[in-house]
């Protein structure tokens, strides 16, 4: 009589690896029922659920690949995961990184970056919305104060720089598979992903805006960001316009002052 641990190890090995000690002697099914078919209900359910969860998180990628390739990718991905997250909704978190070395990427080089975009969209959809920054909170700040200002963006904001036309690739999630036709030669783009209310938005941004977002997210002050952008001939006025755009799009959760340098 196997212990509870032995029994769970045996069935989980069958489910995860497709082999393990013979289970037929340990189970009971009615006369006429096929024990192997009943075990298969569990062993086949696991890969199917993982594949469906990936399809949910990566609709464009799934549509581009088609059912067969997606199932194959899902199998390879599962095999490479050190362990699965408790929540099935999180199973796709590592897929962008996995795709960088997967054989599919040899033919479809854009896959890792498309996956990165789709995972960012998923995360943005579920991200918390902090209170919005209100400029009135800073009405008494001096010019010197503003030089020390640091910006915190909403948690749902992400930035991606890609060699590929990410928005066109992302749009394929809603297209008939036979009609997908993206011109990959059109070049890459920087995109920001953010929430407008409950809707996730993917918008292209210029390189200088991407540079500014990246610098603020790396904890730079407004003075430091302005100085960095000035090297690329970006004027202070342009930085102010970027800031105003972020405020009106509700991308900023707070602005605070860095401690003055000693």
């Amino acid at each position, binding site marked *: 009589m196997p212990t*509870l641990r032995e029994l769970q190890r045996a069935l989980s090995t069958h489910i995860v690896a497709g082999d393990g000690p013979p289970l037929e*002697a*340990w189970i*009971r099914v*009615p006369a006429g029922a096929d024990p192997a078919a009943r075990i298969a209900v569990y062993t086949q359910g*696991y890969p199917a659920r993982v594949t469906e969860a990936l399809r949910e998180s990566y609709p464009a990628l799934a549509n581009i690949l088609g059912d067969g390739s997606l199932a194959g990718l899902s199998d390879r991905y599962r095999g490479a995961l050190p*362990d699965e997250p*408790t929540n099935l909704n999180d199973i796709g978190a590592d897929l962008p990184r996995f795709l960088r070395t997967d054989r599919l990427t040899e033919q479809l080089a854009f896959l890792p970056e498309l996956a990165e975009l789709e995972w960012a969209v998923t995360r943005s959809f579920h991200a918390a919305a902090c209170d919005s920054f209100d400029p009135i909170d800073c009405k008494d700040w001096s010019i010197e104060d503003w030089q020390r200002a640091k910006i915190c963006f909403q948690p749902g904001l992400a930035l991606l720089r890609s060699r590929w036309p990410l928005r066109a690739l992302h749009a394929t999630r809603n297209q008939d598979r036979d009609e997908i036709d993206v011109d990959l030669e059109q070049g890459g783009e920087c995109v920001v992903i953010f929430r407008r209310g409950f809707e996730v938005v993917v918008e292209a941004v210029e390189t200088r805006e991407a540079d500014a977002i990246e610098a603020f997210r790396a904890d730079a002050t407004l003075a430091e960001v302005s100085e960095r952008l000035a090297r690329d001939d970006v004027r202070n006025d342009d930085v102010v316009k970027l800031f105003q755009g972020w405020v009106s799009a509700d991308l900023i959760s707070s602005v605070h002052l860095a401690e003055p340098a000693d």
Partner: protein
Amino acid sequence: MGFGVGLRAEHYDDVLAGAAGADWFEAISDNYMDSFGRPLAILEAVRRDAPVALHGVSLSIGSVDPLDRDYLKRLAALARRIEPAIVSDHLCWSRFDGRSLYDLLPLPLTEECLEHVVSRVQQVQDILGRRILLENPSTYLAWNDSTIPEAEFLAELAQRADCGLLLDVNNVYVSAVNLDFDPLAYLDAIPAERVGQIHLAGFSDMGSHLFDTHSRPVSKEVWRLYAHVVERLGLGDVPTMIEWDADIPAWSRLIEELDCARDVCANGFEQREIGHADVA
């Protein structure tokens, strides 16, 4: 609480627009505990107007792995936020050696397993600070070593751990066909006073077995069992809901199904109108 439905993304707009028909909603805990965007905002909006039950699929109460404290912490946080009428999960295991298997896997119904599950239910209830309900799962095989019929296992578990039961009538029927036992005898062995919620759903006939797909209307057989639950076990006042998770119909069709449940509860199965019987 009356008659409820599962809260699914396909019906968010209907629910927010105040579509009538459901007295309460059941939300899958796992879909809301790690989300702070639209799903959680909608669940909170729903909760402002109606009772909510939180139903989990990842507690893995029967696993030999340690309880997932992080999962429980996040579930407790969601429960504090939503203040649900009911918190439930399944009598099953779904994790081994740190790996999640994303299924409701069958337990050997033995004294060893019963003691194990009782201890873990008590720990979970201590952590959550409330009683939980455990649901009878659909099963496709039984372990040879099982010595306790499932209904008796659940009755004993509920008594020893002082937990409640979520009676899934569809699961009783699916398991009864798949494992060849009498579903009425099963239902009669369930301690009625421990049943805090009832699930109704549809299954798919795979030829060799019934599969719990939640993708179809409730079958005639399950309506009959539900009528038995109401009439013989006196569970007409227990919160009852329709689960429909795949091939999800329009809100109006879902509410038709819920109205069937109201009808069976009030009038019994044999007295149902032809139109309702046809949906099975």
